[in-house]
């Protein structure tokens, strides 16, 4: 079923951008919402466990598909007016999943990435939802048993598939940037740039929720560029100028300052152009009341910036929640290779032709991307021999 509210192109309707605040190499751009509906609220739920095992398919302690990661917190969303005045930290929280002791550590078992807890309450694991969608791209593996694929690859697909990311606290700059950031009264979100490349966007529905969730951004995970570009110099503190020639009264001056604000918003919109305005492929995850939770990814073309993320769209198509993750170049390459293979029904020769290369080169590329376990050893060895020659 296709839904008109599935995001084709990310439009920040009802949102506007305010001038950035810079700390070291990190530039934080506030996202403001002028009209707050107040019927979708988010609260934080923290998990103090070293890791979480989420059953994506099957029961909590049964064998089945699992997603394993460090999950410091989840988000609990409530909708409808019933909870509109509930303040962060005042609700009683239900026990979520199970906590297992493993020596000095504890492991949290959670049921599904998105879990309905009450009639109007949903628990989700932010960004892990998008990441799980990314990991499960072409997860089934080859559908036709071509001779090149290993027995394991044919029977289990990509399982186990893994990706790595960087926690926010790995970058000392990010902590400082979030600490010194001055939250606007109408602020509902944040665009995070490191060395002036967009790393993440985070938007919620209500300003109070944003204020409560602001410092949790340091616990979230980000693309490799957070560290890789973390050693570059400071981001410039930009300053726009006013045009003297157009000012002859205080009213003109006021207009000029207004124009300056507009210029800032346009400029930040341009800086985030790879996310806002780019075409997306989205899949529906959950329908909660009038709200549609979905996850999306951009084109996955290695030549472009790519983001994955999740979003909630309201009944009127307004963007109520957004959280994105910038894929690293290697992650994009992996997704690209898999999608190319899938489009050619996993036939190596056809795919190689599509990519204008040879089958043996493609096998090496697959191995370098971390998918060597899909192919037979003999195929890889042959490719390597050919490559050496």
């Amino acid at each position, binding site marked *: 079923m296709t839904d008109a509210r599935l995001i084709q192109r990310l439009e920040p309707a009802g949102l506007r951008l*305010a*001038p*950035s*605040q810079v700390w070291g190499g990190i530039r934080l751009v*506030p996202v403001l919402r002028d009209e707050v509906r107040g019927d979708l609220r988010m609260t934080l739920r923290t998990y103090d466990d070293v890791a979480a095992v989420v059953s994506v398919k099957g029961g909590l302690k049964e064998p089945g598909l699992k997603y394993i990661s460090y999950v410091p917190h989840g988000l609990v969303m409530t909708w409808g007016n019933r909870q509109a005045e509930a303040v962060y930290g005042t609700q009683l929280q239900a026990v979520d999943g199970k906590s297992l002791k493993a020596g000095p550590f504890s492991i949290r078992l959670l049921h599904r990435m998105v879990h309905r807890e009450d009639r109007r309450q949903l628990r989700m694991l932010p960004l892990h939802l998008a990441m799980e969608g990314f990991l499960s791209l072409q997860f089934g593996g080859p559908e036709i048993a071509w001779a090149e694929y290993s027995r394991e690859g044919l029977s289990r697909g990509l399982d186990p598939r893994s990706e790595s990311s960087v926690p926010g606290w790995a970058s000392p700059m990010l902590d400082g940037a979030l600490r*010194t*950031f*001055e*939250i*606007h*009264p109408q602020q509902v979100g944040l665009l995070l740039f490191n060395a002036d490349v967009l790393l993440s966007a985070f938007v919620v529905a209500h300003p109070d929720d944003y204020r409560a969730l602001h410092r949790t951004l340091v616990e979230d995970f980000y693309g490799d560029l957070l560290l890789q570009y973390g050693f570059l110099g400071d981001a410039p*503190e*930009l*300053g*726009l*100028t*006013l045009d*003297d020639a157009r*000012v*002859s*009264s*205080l009213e003109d*001056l*006021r207009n*000029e*300052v207004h124009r*300056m*604000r507009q210029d*800032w918003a346009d400029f930040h919109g341009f800086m985030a152009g790879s996310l806002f305005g780019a075409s997306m492929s989205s899949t529906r995850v959950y329908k909660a009341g009038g709200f549609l939770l979905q996850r999306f990814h951009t084109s996955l073309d290695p030549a472009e910036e790519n983001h994955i993320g999740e979003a909630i769209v309201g009944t009127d198509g307004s963007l109520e929640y957004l959280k994105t993750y910038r894929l690293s170049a290697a992650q994009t390459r992996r997704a690209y290779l898999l999608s190319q293979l899938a489009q050619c029904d996993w036939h190596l020769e056809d795919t190689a032709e599509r990519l204008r290369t040879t089958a043996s080169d493609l096998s090496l590329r697959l191995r370098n991307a971390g998918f060597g376990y899909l192919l037979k050893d003999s195929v890889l060895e042959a490719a390597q021999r050919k490559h050496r020659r």
Partner: protein
Amino acid sequence: MAALAEARVEQVTREDLVMFVNACFSCTGQREFYGDARGQSVSIEFLHQYILGNYRRLYARTLAAGINHFNQAQIILNLLASGSPADARDKAEEGALIAAALRALPPQRAFRVLESLRGRRINNRRARAIARDYVHGRANLAFDAVKYRSKLRAAVSHGHLKLEGELGPFLFRGWKKRSFTQPLLETFRRAHYTHEALYELPYTVAEGLAVKHGISREVFLRRIEPRLTAAERLRLQESAARERGTPPPVDLGRASLTKLALYVLALSPEVRRERHAELDAALEQAAARVLRRAPSPLQRVAAILDNSYSSSGSLEKRRRPLGVALATHYLLSAAAREYRAWWTCPVEEPLLVSARGQTDIATPLLEALAWGADLVVIVSDGYDNDPPKAVAELTRVFRSKLDPERHTALVHVNPVFDSEGYAPRSFGAAVPTVGVRDAEDVPTVLGFARFAEGVALLSELEAYLASRAGAMLQRDAGGLQGHDEGRRQDAPPVEEGES
């Protein structure tokens, strides 16, 4: 060519001095919202060494410019550490300034300076003479010996000072064993053994002994109450209320303006609303008292007060920028004939202000200019981020296009020292920036603003510093005489200053 070079030299000197005096108004080497303590202290130390090395006479005269206590102490130490100047007149003036500044400092800070002489291994003849004169000039040395025992002891042993009567033995030899004829020293001795004597000691001394005796905090606070100084009362309001239910009675009307503002900001909004009339009256009273001391009649004044999140200060300077803004609000409203205030995040009532939101100074500044103020005072840490650097541009265009004749004066008062810029952060060249630590200094720094603007000549700045130095020496001489006449054996508990 030579004239050009001379003009350039003069400009550099003037800029250096303005930067230094500005830094000395605001910096205390403590952590700020954006800068850490290490950066702050390295930065201010460098400035001190640079000015001392290049402009020694002016460096000494800065002592009288109304700078904060931290920097006065630094200047005294640096001057004493670097020997005395060759010129006899300079030497005499410098010595007099050091002695006067030391006497004007709150006693705990002055004794700290003497103790630091030992820490920094400064022990020349002048330093010893300064320490000797200070210690012998104290009105009630026995009280100092009890309250600042370790510091006085350090000063005495380091400077080879001779003390009269029982003080020497009290500080150095077996005060545990013998009994003293001087009542306070005897009380201190007895307080080690009986509870009763403890309550006749200064609070800070009694506090440690109370722990030693295992007296419960509640009982201790109730019984020590008559001995509390006004500053201690103000400081203990919250914690004493927690411990024993009722805070020690405090006369808010007597507290200093900035401290009172900081105290008000530490209260919860509900309490502030409840006690609104009382707090409001106390702040107005404090402001009026400041103006009685330093009258500064102003005409039509607009204040733009920064209550963005960064005005919450740091752990070491909690809410100080906001406190300075609130105190300045009361001060200016009392000083000006017409007055209006704009907060960056609008508040219904100045007393209920809190540090929240972004720094949008451009919008209130435009409103203040439209209102037609003849003096606009901006109290802010200098980080405007909505939009960034808008104030610099706005004021530049305003000056060049709308107000080239300078009908409207703009002053930026900055309570935060920016360690990387070696000065309080400014809003560009069109607004003079002056540093400030307490709102009480605002009249002084408004007088200094014309130097920060860069229009006044170096000779004027030198004359200004010389006149301040002369006034300080005169005040000190007058104070000494008055002191001698009114010297009392039983001095009241000393007020503690904190700037």
